[in-house]
């Protein structure tokens, strides 16, 4: 026996499901937005990183170029020394050509007599910057060719 003026019975399961769906939709939207935002940030950061890498490689190249330049300067300096030595060691020798390729020296010259040529050969053999010094050719006009390997150490 009862009098009922007003009565409401809400289905808890449906209310829960509705709330869960709303929560999921909102979460998904938030995640999509966040993902998009982070993706843009990531792209920008990646572009910046690439730029920095390019800059880095540019500077590394510059540094290695500088090293190479200093090496070539050193080599040219040594070759210059070598020529200076050759000229200094033979007063009566006329050098027709001095060819240096891959550290191999080909000397084409003309002497006044045999003795001067042999003296030069001996002097070159004693030089610490030259090794495997060899008198390759010699003719009657005292024209000769000397081959050697340059050691720049």
């Amino acid at each position, binding site marked *: *026996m*009862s*009098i*009922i*003026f*007003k*009565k*409401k*019975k*809400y289905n*808890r399961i449906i*209310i829960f499901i509705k709330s869960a769906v709303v929560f999921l939709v909102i979460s998904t939207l938030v995640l999509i937005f966040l993902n998009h935002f982070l993706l843009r940030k990531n792209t920008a950061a990646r572009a910046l990183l690439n730029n920095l890498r390019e800059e880095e490689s540019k500077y590394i190249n510059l540094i290695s170029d500088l090293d190479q330049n200093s090496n070539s300067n050193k080599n040219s300096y040594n070759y210059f020394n070598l020529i200076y030595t050759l000229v200094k060691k033979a007063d009566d020798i006329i050098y027709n050509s001095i060819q240096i390729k891959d550290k191999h020296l080909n000397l084409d010259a003309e002497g006044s007599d045999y003795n001067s040529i042999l003296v030069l050969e001996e002097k070159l053999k004693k030089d610490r910057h030259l090794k495997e010094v060899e008198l390759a050719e010699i003719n009657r006009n005292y024209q000769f060719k000397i081959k050697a390997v340059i050691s720049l150490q």
Partner: protein
Amino acid sequence: MFNNYYSVTIPAENKLKNLVARAKNHKINFIDGINELSSIGKIKKFNFNCHYVVLLPASSLFYHSVALEEKNPYKISEDNILNKFAEVKENFEDEFYYDYLEVVGESEEREIKFFAAKKDLLDPITADMEKYKNNYIVSALPVAVFSVINKIVKAKNYLLYYKINDSYTIISALNNKIDLLQSSVKEKELKEVIEENKKYYLNNKEIELEVLEGKSDLLNLGDYMDLKNDDFVFLTSLLWSINRCQ
């Protein structure tokens, strides 16, 4: 597991009286006694794990007893009943919530005990519960009290009076069926009104009513709960709510 809490709310003047209890394994524990609130939304246990029951006291109800004149005893025409009130009050259906009990006397006389409550008084009380989608039920306090007491008392014809909001409500029962309802009886008039009722039944129906005072002893709970006499209405309401909502 869930819904072990029961909240019983009885409106008083410009405020609400509320009791929250937990009923589990045949034990009832009161959470925080009877509290006065401005709205149901301020109940401490205001959540989904609670049965909310609002019981309107007799003073805020519109009560009327109507004799049925239907030819078909198994069919009650609601329009027929409402027509009677339309003569008194226009737009009755729009302004009131209503429900009724059908009472069949020993002589097969059939009556409708009609109860109505004003919508503009009731809707603000239930607003919070609708807003937060809480399950609730709004019923009539005298009917709830009568329903519980009627199962306990041995007498068939009796007069029950109980105190609510500083005044008394009197319910008379004939053959274990609710008959008359009087509300807002002042304490000094109580004795006189009870005597008048007894004389009325004695003179007109030759029935002597047993007078029952609405107090906790009536519920035969013994030491089951520690209660004050004033808590009779709330305790009865709580028992009715637990029985109704389980």
